[in-house]
């Protein structure tokens, strides 16, 4: 993983502690491999996030 899936910045750029906290209550928005914005669908009991280059991750 290279990028923060919450803010999209490089993981080496800052601590991303607030991002980690935010991801408890939010799905990821950026692909951790390429930082593309992902297509995210939130369901009542879960979520899916799809990167056009790196596929789908889900809860």
């Amino acid at each position, binding site marked *: 993983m290279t990028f923060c899936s919450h*803010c*999209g910045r490089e993981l080496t750029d800052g601590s991303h502690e607030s991002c980690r906290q935010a991801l*408890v*209550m*939010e*799905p990821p*928005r*950026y692909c951790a491999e390429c930082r593309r*914005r*992902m*297509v*995210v*669908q*939130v*369901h*009542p*009991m*879960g*979520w899916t996030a799809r990167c056009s280059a790196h596929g789908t991750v889900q809860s």
Partner: protein
Amino acid sequence: MGDIVDVAREQVLERGVGLSQEQLVEVLQTTDDRLPELLALAHEVRVKWCGEEIEVEGIISLKTGGCPEDCHFCSQSGQFTSPVRAVWLNIPELVQAAQETAATGATEFCIVAAVRGPDARLMSQVKAGIEAINAAVEINIACSLGMLTQEQVDELKAMGVHRYNHNLESARSYFPDVVTTHSFEERWETCLMVRESGMELCCGGLVGMGESLEQRAELAAQLAELEPHEVPLNFLNPRPGTPFGDMEVMDGKDALRTIAAFRLAMPRTVLRYAGGRELTLGDLGTRDGLLGGINAVIVGNYLTTLGRPATADLDLLAELKMPVKELQKTL
């Protein structure tokens, strides 16, 4: 003029008459040391005029993002630099979501779209979705599709939609600070049409968006004037990239005072915890609100953010000995 809690006890609890806007300002100005007393009264009012049951609902976004409107709190506006991308949900996933929601014991399933108002494509997708859900699972279907024409109101009614959500969002006097692409009056008009149609009206708003206490009371009074069947109460969850993205999270005690005030404004309505409660109130505050006027919850996730696990809320309701409303019953 007597003490506002004593006045509310006689007026709302005993007679079932909601507080006026001026009285609600007094409620919102009560001091922290009187908050437990205020919440206890709001709970008594809820139990007396609504009963013991809690209504459980799940929500799903049918069309996410790319909205032309500029509601300053919303990450789904296409006008902001929010990371939320546009996506449509397919029918099988919609049905699966309804089934998962029903499995929690929920009686309500709300289909939501981020639009100004529905076009023919969206209405067609909603119709197909409702038919597929009805064929698969027993649950009441609600919709939230923005501003409607009379023809669309009639179509949704004919589809079997039993409740329609359209929030006022904020008080009339603060609305221009929240939305500029449409007016408070346009929202009001849709609410009136829905109510007149016989569908149940679900109409609430958000607090913690920089409005004054007076404007918070104004929102409650304007909602009371509409007499909605349900009032979803949202607390601002500041979303990155939106104009309200840098706002502070609302103080928990203010949020609880607001819950009590809304209950005392509308003793008979279904007052639902909606978005932002996890951030604003946390677990302890969630419990306090359920014992302070709330009688409905959204379980599971929201439209673009996540909620507490459904089991956490259901366990809490069981612990508080609050029965969940069953299907086919009206609160």
